[in-house]
């Protein structure tokens, strides 16, 4: 696989209030990679991911996804892009009051017609897939439980299953473990790794902790003030780089 699955070129995002969150970001993601994006909060990590699946509109620059530039596409094309790009959020963003299974089935909304989905007609394949992915993230026994009854770690696993139900070729994860406790943190990251290894799905993941980065990433880019300041292998991040990314006073924290 020589062609990158995702190729971001000179991406600029200026919010309507004038904040320039991305100032010309360029990088490539190869098929099957586990790319981690690090950076201080406010460095533009979330903005970057949201531009890629077009929850935000980029101001300028190109985003090549599976060969075509999707930076400025509109309407139906945005929807077909999103079907292939799963997204995991810091706060899970599940639909409250619905069960685990129902939330996972919502991952297939892109394939089901509007009216069919409203009346709950999901295809048998969608249903077996939903079960399969729930099993993959280890919560098959919870499918009838309302998601608001689950712990944070379990909710994030449901979110992963929902994203997988889309049948995506890439997963974007925006600080997926930032609101979880350290122990659960590793469980969720392990499932992401499993998805990456077993299903071969490319992952771009924003993270806060360098120790997690070393453990899970196959490659790292670092953002600072909306620019890429580091790109390389996680093993090569030295104390020097660390200071450059996080500022002079930063100390590396370990979580186990």
């Amino acid at each position, binding site marked *: 696989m020589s062609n990158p699955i995702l190729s971001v070129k000179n991406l600029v995002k200026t919010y309507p209030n004038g904040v320039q969150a991305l100032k010309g970001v360029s990088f490539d993601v190869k098929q099957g990679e586990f790319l981690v994006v690090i950076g201080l909060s406010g460095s533009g990590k979330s903005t970057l991911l949201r531009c890629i*699946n077009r*929850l935000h509109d980029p101001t300028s620059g190109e985003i090549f996804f599976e060969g075509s530039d999707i930076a400025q596409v509109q309407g139906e094309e945005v*929807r*077909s*892009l*999103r*079907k292939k*790009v*799963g*997204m995991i*959020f810091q*706060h*899970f*963003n*599940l*639909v*409250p*009051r*619905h069960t685990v299974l129902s939330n996972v089935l*919502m*991952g*297939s*909304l*892109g394939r089901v017609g*509007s009216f069919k*989905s*409203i009346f709950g007609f999901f295809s048998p394949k969608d249903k077996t897939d939903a079960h399969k992915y729930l099993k993959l993230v280890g919560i098959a026994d919870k499918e009838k439980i309302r998601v608001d009854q689950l712990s944070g770690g379990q909710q994030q696993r449901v*979110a992963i299953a*929902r*994203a997988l139900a*889309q049948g995506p070729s890439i997963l974007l994860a925006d600080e997926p473990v930032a609101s979880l406790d350290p122990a659960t943190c590793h469980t969720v990251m392990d499932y992401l790794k499993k998805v990456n290894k077993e299903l071969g799905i490319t992952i771009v993941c924003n993270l806060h902790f360098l120790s997690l980065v070393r453990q899970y990433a196959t490659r790292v880019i670092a953002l600072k003030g909306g620019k890429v300041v580091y790109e390389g292998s996680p093993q090569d991040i030295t104390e020097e780089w660390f200071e450059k990314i996080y500022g002079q006073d930063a100390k590396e924290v370990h979580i186990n």
Partner: protein
Amino acid sequence: MKAYLFRRTFFDSFIFAYLVMVLLVVVASPSPEEMLLLERNSILFTVAMFIGAVISSGLNKASNEKLHTLGESLFQPQYKKATKNEVSWYKTMAGWQLTVFLCVTFVVGIRVTKFSLLELLNEDGFAGAVRLFKGLFSPNFEILPKAVLNIIETIFMAFIATILAIPFAFVLSFFCARNIMKGPVAYAIYMSLRTLLNFTRAIEAIIWAIIFSVWVGIGPFAGMLALMIHSIASLAKQYSEMVETVSDGPIEGIQSTGATKLQTVWFAIVPQVILPYISFTVYRWDINVRMATIIGLVGGGGIGTMLIQYQGQAMWPEVGCIILVIAIVVWAMDQASAVIREALK
């Protein structure tokens, strides 16, 4: 910032102009014909407002906080409200402004409502009231079957008005929610719908009933239409306020799966608003039963129309029976809707 200055100045000058007009009436004691000169009086009011605006601006420019006006202390932005010197109210301009306004309004109000102890204690009048109360407290239950049938008609009128209002209000609520109507075209639709609904709601149901009783003839159908129009406007507003408070998380979650707009509304927004929707709707039915009674008075059918017929013939024991039936049903509806709404929490 600009809005605050405008509100402050308008408020102060309105109070000032009002006081000036009262003073003019007292001092010049104009004839009834003069009181009707709307044009001239409006000009006087406007001039007084202008003077008031100048005074208000002047006082509020003063560095001494005690001189600041009521409008200032009411509308000033939060950061100014955050700090304040402790001063007794009677040492401040605002305190006196409020006191004078309330006293003058009380005196004028007593005059306008022709408040009169004399009439309240007038012997003939009092005897009439006693007769009425006697009738009310010894209700004539012969008309009870008819009253029951009529109140059932009223309850159904309220029910159908509510049910028919739901789909309209449901659809409108999404078009009237700021967080959904993004973009210039959507904003224009949002603004015009909001204005239309506010206007509709400003017209009381009883006035709609008068309009419809001319249109479709006196009877329950006119009453139902009046309640329906009013319910659509009220529910759409309450619904849309709920839509505006939904959290963005599930919306983004569903959008990112490649869902359509309709699917996003159905799967991410509806689950967040459905319980409050039902709660508002049950409450609206409860309100509609009460309103339906009043609407009946102007020919909207049901128990209200029956009440006004007996009242016109001064048949107080019959009126007493009807009022009793209304009171029981309204009380029961009130209790039931409270219990249902509690269960929906």
